[in-house]
């Protein structure tokens, strides 16, 4: 496969990447606070919608239908957008998308303004632009913070949630040369407003992503809060939107579902401050040159897997991240990918053809909180399990059978397939554990891979009698009398004898 732009080297696996983050109390505090606030708001505004579950189902079906007819809708989009004066480009992978954008983005100022876009993060567009001598200016407040800090976004919707106001002030003071800048969020927002206004008015090219591509009209919809999006898609002469092929919805009317699901799930607002829809070029209003780059970048590989294609239903609301108890501890950077949290755990390895990010499907307790909040009902736990299966079967053939985990699983299965073996294993366990039982009567330290458990927890040892042994040993009379009334079980027979 041709390389995508994201670093192709194998990043750290999730447990290793998470480790230093778990010791970053500041970051963890920020993440907990931010996800907690959004979760609370989401809970409130979702709770006031009596038809929320019906909307979710409609949303799921609209997304599934869009994918089922994806070729049809993309061609329709292309045709309508072109008819409206837009230009549609197709890119098989990140490199191709970046090349297209680079050619279009050339301008005398040497700058482009950008609206926050996960898709251009995925393609690594900013690096490509910089390498070509074009300075990309992120205009979303959080993305600006991330960019000035040479940092990476840690959340789909709130990319800088790992930074607090003092850290943001430090960045702005340096970048904007404002030594007396206050650190109230209002001061910081005002500084960004002044800093960026000049860029909006003087930069001739803007680059955006897209929340929805509307096949019926060839239109694009962008959902935002700050107005930087409107600035970018209204003021410059040229606008380039980079969108994954999965962003398509059939009709304008489908926005009546999506624009209810997305804001409530993403930021816990009934509606976000600004939604913009435009179609091609509008004479006398806005950019007079408009390009859409439709990006595959292995999305068609996701589409190919019947068990996992629902991953592409995602509308990038980030609700699963806020709900995820794992993300809550680690933040987004542990996922080693643009896409973090539960959705990242299923999307990232698929976009990497299961060659990277194999630890991500295991970065979940399968608690189901992500599925519960997903506005388009992506059954993330189910997809996680499916991808775990692909990780296992994707191991090199020669190693597959010898993988320690596979050996354990096969041995456990062999044991469970015979009652005798299971009994013997129980008896063996009782003997084998003896050296590990401490004076407290518990196991406090275990060897090798099981040692992870005893790092923070003790383990109660196996009792001297298993349930089946107890059941078998109890007097028949107890059973007979128990089935008659009055029921009475003597305490002796119900207690597990302990030695």
């Amino acid at each position, binding site marked *: 496969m041709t390389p995508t732009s994201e670093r192709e080297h194998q990043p750290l696996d999730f447990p290793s990447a998470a480790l230093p983050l778990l010791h970053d109390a500041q970051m963890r505090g920020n993440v907990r606070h931010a996800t907690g606030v959004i979760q609370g708001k989401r809970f409130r505004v979702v709770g006031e919608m009596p038809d929320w579950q019906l909307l979710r189902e409609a949303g799921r079906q609209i997304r599934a239908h869009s994918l089922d007819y994806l070729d049809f809708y993309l061609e329709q989009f292309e045709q309508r957008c072109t008819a409206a004066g837009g230009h549609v480009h197709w890119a098989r992978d990140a490199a191709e998308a970046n090349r297209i954008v680079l050619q279009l983005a050339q301008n005398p100022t040497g700058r482009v303004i950008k609206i926050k876009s996960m898709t251009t993060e995925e393609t690594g567009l900013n690096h490509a632009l910089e390498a070509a001598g074009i300075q990309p200016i992120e205009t979303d407040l959080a993305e600006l913070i991330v960019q000035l800090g040479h940092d990476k976004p840690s959340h789909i919707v709130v990319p800088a949630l790992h930074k607090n106001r003092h850290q943001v002030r430090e960045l702005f003071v340096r970048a904007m040369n404002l030594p007396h800048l206050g650190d109230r969020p209002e001061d910081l927002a005002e500084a960004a407003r002044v800093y960026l206004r000049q860029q909006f008015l003087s930069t001739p090219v803007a680059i955006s992503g897209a929340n929805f591509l509307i096949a019926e009209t060839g239109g694009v919809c962008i959902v935002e809060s700050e107005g930087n999006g409107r600035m970018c898609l209204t003021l410059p002469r040229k606008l380039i939107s980079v969108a994954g092929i999965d962003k398509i919805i059939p009709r304008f009317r489908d926005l009546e579902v999506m624009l209810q699901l997305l804001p409530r799930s993403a930021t816990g607002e009934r509606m976000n401050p600004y939604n913009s829809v435009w179609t091609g070029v509008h004479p006398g209003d806005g950019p007079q040159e408009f390009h859409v780059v439709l990006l595959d970048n292995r999305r068609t590989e996701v589409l190919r897997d019947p068990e996992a294609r629902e991953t592409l239903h995602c509308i990038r609301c980030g609700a699963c991240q806020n709900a995820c*108890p794992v993300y809550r501890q680690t933040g987004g950077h542990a996922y080693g990918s643009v896409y973090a949290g539960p959705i990242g755990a299923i999307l990232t390895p698929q976009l990497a053809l299961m060659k990277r990010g194999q630890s991500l499907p295991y970065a979940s307790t399968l608690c189901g909180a992500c599925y519960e909040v997903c506005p388009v009902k992506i059954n993330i736990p189910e997809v996680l399990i499916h991808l775990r299966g692909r990780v296992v079967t994707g191991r090199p053939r020669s190693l597959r059978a010898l993988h320690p985990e596979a050996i354990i699983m096969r041995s*456990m299965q062999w044991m469970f397939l015979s*009652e005798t073996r299971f009994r013997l294993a129980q008896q063996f366990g009782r003997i084998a554990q003896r050296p590990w039982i401490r004076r407290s*009567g518990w196991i406090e330290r275990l060897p090798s891979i099981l040692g992870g458990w005893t790092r923070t927890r*003790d383990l109660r040892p196996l009792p001297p009698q298993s349930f089946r*042994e107890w059941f078998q040993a109890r007097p028949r009379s107890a059973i007979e009398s128990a089935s008659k009334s009055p029921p009475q079980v003597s305490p002796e027979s119900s207690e597990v004898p302990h030695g």
Partner: protein
Amino acid sequence: MRIALFVTCYNDTLFPEVGIAVVRVLERLGHTIDFPYAQTCCGQMHYNTGYLPEALPLVRRFVDIFRDSEVVCVPSSSCVGMMREHYEKIALASGDKTLQSDVSALLPRVYEFTELLVHRLGIEDVGAVYPHRVTYHASCHSLRNLHLGDVPIRLLRNVRDLELIPMEATDLCCGFGGTFSIKNADVSGAMLEEKLQYVQKTQAEVCTACDNSCLMHIGGALHRQRAKMRTEHIATILGSDSISPATRKDAY
């Protein structure tokens, strides 16, 4: 009623008092308990770790053993969740038509223990006595797979002398997640640490749940910290009466 007990592999091995308490409660209510000795494991660990082919014979074994049971009682919501969420899919993947129809016929007769009491038997007061301050952890599978809602709470409220203390963030995952607690031991530990703050804030004597997997996790940390609180499966609380607690008291 003849009730077949699927005690689950880890309750059988590690927490026999749970099975004993289930037997006690159900017999006290006048039912007869079958315990098919051939039973072992539902296959959850294999399936959830990505070993679907390895899980299949375990699924088949479970179905063969309980095919003819009138009602199957399982004191573990994660095992019931495994069956309800995945058995049909596993059967479908096997291409075995008989297995598919057996699974579909059996599943409606499988109940988690508290669910069996409240939804199938219509009982919210099992006549238990348990003079302790208790808090309840709503395990992920009981909450989101089985949708048990307040079923366990209703049962606990009817236990004599039991003081039920609500837990803040009762639905926050404890971080166990089966092999997750081994593969991602540090993150799991961090999750547990947060959960434990809420658990200990209740100042209860006992933390209970419908899943011993979570309780093994929470209890392991409580013991490590030499906390005054201990964990107890809901069945052992419901199985306690004035003369004999059903809990394994000497373990603490």
